[in-house]
Structures are given as C-alpha cells and as structure tokens.
C-alpha cells in the first residue's frame, strides 16, 4: 500500500564522489604548481604514484571488505607480517629467495582467512575480530622477531618490484596497475564481484538468491589479507627490509582512501576508479602539505578537516524520516 512512496530520490548521476575526488586532485596540483613548477613535472608525479602504489595495493583489499559492509582492522600487522615473513624466507638461501614473495602473501592470506571465517560463520562483528586478530598477528611477529626489527633484508625480487624502475617507470606503479586491473576485472566481470556488491547491499536478498554468501565473505577477507601482506612485501622491498609496526601508518589512510573514493562504509556501493582517486588524493595531499613545509601538526589538522569536509559533501547517511 505504501509502495508509491518507494522510488528513492536516486539522482541519475555521474559518479559524484569520483568526480569530486578527481576535481580535488586537480585542485591540489594547481595549488601545488603555484608553489613550484616541479609539481607538474613527470618525475614528481611518478614519484607520487610510486608512493601511492603501496597504499593503492593495500586499499584494494580494504575496499573489497568495505564493499561487503565490513572493515579490516588487522591490516597494520598483516602488512608487517607480510614484510617480515617474506624477508625471513629470503634468509633461507636461494630457494627461500624464490619463495619469499609468495610466502609473505600466503601468511597474509591465512590471517585474512581467519578473519573471514570468524565474520562469515561465527558472525563476530568484523570490527572486533579483526582487532583481536591484529593483536595475534602482532604477538606472532613480536615473538618471531624478538621485538626488534629483524636483520633479514628483502630479497632481490622484492627490491625489484618495490624499489626499482624501468625507463623511469617505478615497478611498484606497474604492480599497482596490474593489481588494480585485476580488481576492476574481479569487481565488474565476475560472479564473485557481483556477489560482493550484492552482499554489501542486502545480505538477506543475496542469500535468498542462492549466492554462497559465507564463502564470498571468507574469500574477500582472504584477499584483503593477501593484498595487505603483498603491500608489506612491496614496502619491505622499497625500504630494503621489514620494520616493526611499519604497517601502522597505513590503516587509516587505507580506509580514508576507500571512503573518499565514494565507497560507502556501509557497503554495496563504490567503484575502483574512486579508490584510485582516493589513494592519489591522499598521497598528493600528504606530499603537498609536506612540500609546502607546513608543520606536521598543520598537516594532520588539514588532513582531518578535508576528509570530514569531503564526506559531508557526499558521504552522508539517509535521514531517519
């Protein structure tokens, strides 16, 4: 009976958040170029992309989980674990070197599986379980490393993908492009991607449509863990070795990048293009604030204010009545 009230005021629209995010990127570049013409130089932009690539890989996994309407707070120590385990494998001779990268990723995958099973089958809120799993991962790494940054260094392959460039193009950027292309493919062309969006929108409807919702949730968390660990592998390659709490600085930017890119924190809505925009935006914002020699405190404040302002522009919930 009340049906006629139903058609939602869904504006037929361009993807607003993505447009705004890219608009802000351009604005940042313009503001930056007023300071120094270097801002528009290819070298600077590539450098930013390289820095952004690490965040980009990590945010890709985070996006999958957020699209489900969940969150992964175990990312920090999954990153660290990926980095440390890959470096540790490197220390085991030539075979270790070969398997360093897959081994690091595998460790992250296991962490993600643990999260996924707890969320999908035990239905523990992801906020808590991933927090606890983060503590466990930290505990494992502390126990392994003795509380110090391990002396093992990254394998040549890790350094190759994390730190080196070909023809001026950083390999990390290429890695992000590949990961991103796979993510776009996964989200738009596969049944898995459709299921992720469906579950994020209405899990009950997805379940009644005969989609294996629990398996999809486990898989998404596993991917998130694997990508976080891969991000850690890249970072270790970039820095030459793993470090304690190297992942801590990536949790909030990863969530912020995904949300700024227009992905709803409640799940079900968002595009990878938006996440790319969010990652670049955050990387650029951090870089410009530091180039402008604004003190760290100012950077933090501006950073927070801009995120809130952008979210108020397009990230609001529907009004209760």
């Amino acid at each position, binding site marked *: 009976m009340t049906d006629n009230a139903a058609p939602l005021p869904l504006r037929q629209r361009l993807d607003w958040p993505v447009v705004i995010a890219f608009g802000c990127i351009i604005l940042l570049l313009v503001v930056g170029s007023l300071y120094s013409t270097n801002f528009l130089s290819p070298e600077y932009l590539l450098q930013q992309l390289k820095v952004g690539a690490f965040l980009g890989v990590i945010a890709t996994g985070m996006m999958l989980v957020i699209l489900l309407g969940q969150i992964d707070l175990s990312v920090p120590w999954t990153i660290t674990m990926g980095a440390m385990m890959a470096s540790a494998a490197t220390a085991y001779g030539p075979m270790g070197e070969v398997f360093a990268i897959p081994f690091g990723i595998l460790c992250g995958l296991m962490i993600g599986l643990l999260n996924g099973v707890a969320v999908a089958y035990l239905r523990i809120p992801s906020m808590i379980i991933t927090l606890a799993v983060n503590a*466990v991962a930290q505990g494992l790494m502390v126990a392994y490393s*003795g509380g110090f940054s391990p002396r093992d260094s990254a394998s040549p392959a890790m350094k190759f993908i994390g730190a080196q460039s070909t023809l001026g193009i950083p390999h990390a950027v290429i890695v992000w492009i590949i990961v991103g292309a796979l993510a776009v493919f996964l989200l738009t062309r596969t049944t898995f991607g459709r299921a992720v969006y469906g579950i994020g929108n209405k899990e009950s409807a997805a*379940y009644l449509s005969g989609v294996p919702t629990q398996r999809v949730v486990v898989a998404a968390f596993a991917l998130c863990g694997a990508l976080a660990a891969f991000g850690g592998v890249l970072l270790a390659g970039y820095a030459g070795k793993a470090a304690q709490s190297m992942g801590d600085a990536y949790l909030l930017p990863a969530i912020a990048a995904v949300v700024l890119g227009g992905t709803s924190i409640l799940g079900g809505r968002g595009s990878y293009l938006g996440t790319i925009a969010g990652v670049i935006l955050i990387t650029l914002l951090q870089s410009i604030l530091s180039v402008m020699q604004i003190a760290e405190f100012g950077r933090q*404040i501006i950073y927070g*204010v801009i*995120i*809130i302002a952008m979210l108020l522009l397009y990230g609001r919930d529907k009004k*209760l009545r």
Partner: protein
Amino acid sequence: MSEWRFWFNAQRGTLLALAIFVAMFAIYLLNHPAIVNNGFTVQGVGNVLQTAANKGILLALIAIAQTFVVLTAGIDLSVGMIFVLCNVVASYVVVNNLGAPWGFDLGPVLGPAVGVVIVLLVGIACGAVNGAIVIFGRLQPIVATIATSAVFFGLALWMRPQPGATPEFAKALGKFMLSKFGGVVPASMVFLLIIVVLLWIPYRRSVLGRATYAVGSSEAAAYMSGMPIRRAKFLAYVWSGFFAGLGGLYLTFVTSSGQADSAAAGTYTLNSIAAVVLGGVSLFGGRGGAIGAVFGALAFLTIKDLMFVLNVDPLYQPLLQGVILLLAVSIGSARLFQVRNRLELFG
C-alpha cells in the same frame, strides 16, 4: 530472592568481568615477588595495589569513554587521541601559576583547579565535535572519528612538538591523585569510585541515560516511543569526550609531562574496545555499562601483569594476550548455533 535474580541477570556481563578480574588479580597478587618474598605486609600489598591502580585507571577511564558511544551502537576511534590531546593541554594548564604570563596568577590552589576544568572542557569540546558530525552531519561514527582523530592529533602536536612539561606543573596534585590512603587504598581507585557514583549512576538513571540505551537497543522502537534520540546520542559523545579528557588528565599526573604520542593513542583506542567487550558491553548497543567496562579494563591489564609474574617469556606475552582476546570475543558467537531461521543471521 527473585529480585536478586533480575539484578543478577541484568548485571551478568559486569559480574563476569568482575569475577575474572578478581580471580586473575588474586593469582597475580599471590605470585607477585613482593608478596612471595615478604608475605602479606600492609606496605607490600599497598604498593602492588597502588601500582596496578595507577596503571589501571587510565584504561578504565578511556573504556568508560568508549562505553558511552558503544551503548548507542556507535564506535569512537578518537578516544585515544582526545586522551592524548588532553594530556598535552594538561601539561600546560594544570600549573601552580596559571595566568601568570597575563598578570593574574591564580596561585597553587585555584590555578590547578581551573586548569583541570579547562582540560575537561577541551575533552567535552572534542566529544561534542564528534557528536555533531555523527548526528547532524550523518556520517558513520567509525569514519567520522577516524578523521577527527587526525585533527585532535594535529592540535596535540601543535602544542607539544616535543614531549615535555612546564616547570610549574602542579606536581603536588598529581602526587596526591596517585597516592594511597591509609597505606593501602589507592587514591586513584577512590577517585574512580567517586566518579562512578557521582556521574555514571545518576546518568544511568536519568531520562537521557535511558534514552541512550533505548537508541542502541532499537532506534526504531525508541523513535516510535517518542524518546529524545538525537539529544541522547549527542550527550553520549559529550560524556565520552569528558571521560577521555579525565583520562588525559590522569596520564599527566602519572607522567608529569605532555606528549603528542600517536602510538599511545592508537593503543588506548584499541584497548578500550577490547576492555568494553570484556566488560560485557555489547558492540551492537544497548547493553552493558561503565562499571563492567572498568572491570573489563582492569582485567585486560591484569592479563599482562599476570604473564609477567608467571614468568611467561616476554616475547610471547603479546601473542598470548592476543589469543586470549580472540577467544574472549569468540565466545558470544555460540548462540548462532541455535538460530533456526537462517535469514535471522543477517539481522
């Protein structure tokens, strides 16, 4: 008799946290080197209690702060930063000569008192900002508080780029707040008790306090019953800021300095969530209370202490702590096996 049953039922989470804490603390006490070597002397027990209390009150206050927001079915990821920001503010304003630079020295009694009020107002302001963004800006609490915590951290860093304190810091007040009464009773626990009795219990019994629970339990039913939903939510965030500020103040008493320490902020935020969960506060809102959260916080810290006195290899302590946390949060999921309509799983 049956009255007790209802009371027990309502307080189950709190009582469980209390029981776990008491049991663990007893084991801790019995194995503490000071007790093992010298027996139960007043001084020995008093010292152990004091040390534990002065560590415990920090997380207890932050856990109370987190409780308010969690009761509304929200989450506050900025409590740790408000805590740190208030610590930094306190390191400037809780001084014996407040106002001296501007020519009105308030002196060693009034000065620190006004300073304390300023610190708490800063906490309240931070909470109000969070509340306004969540309620009137209609942003999800988790994202909103992630963003505001960056702002709070920036402010803290602005004031204290380097750790430190003003030389006039009111050390006497700090010392008093961390002392022990009659050689045994830790002042900080007395203080905590006063706070709970004077602030939490009246709030719990006020109309808005009840509305907070109602909103967290079922926002739709609360709306249909005509309860003041928005005011109740806003107030919860304000209280949260107040208690985080109180925590910051206490941190200043402990360290006698201010430090814009983002790592500490993160740790306290995460531990506060663990503490409220252990304390029987439901993350889905509407269930639990500050008293449970306090015991949750104390129990959480005792895990660490216990591992210390039981000679667990320090390297394995974080792992063990994590595993205990993991098991604790998994226990509640047993109810799932009773769900008979699978659609109910999706809420």
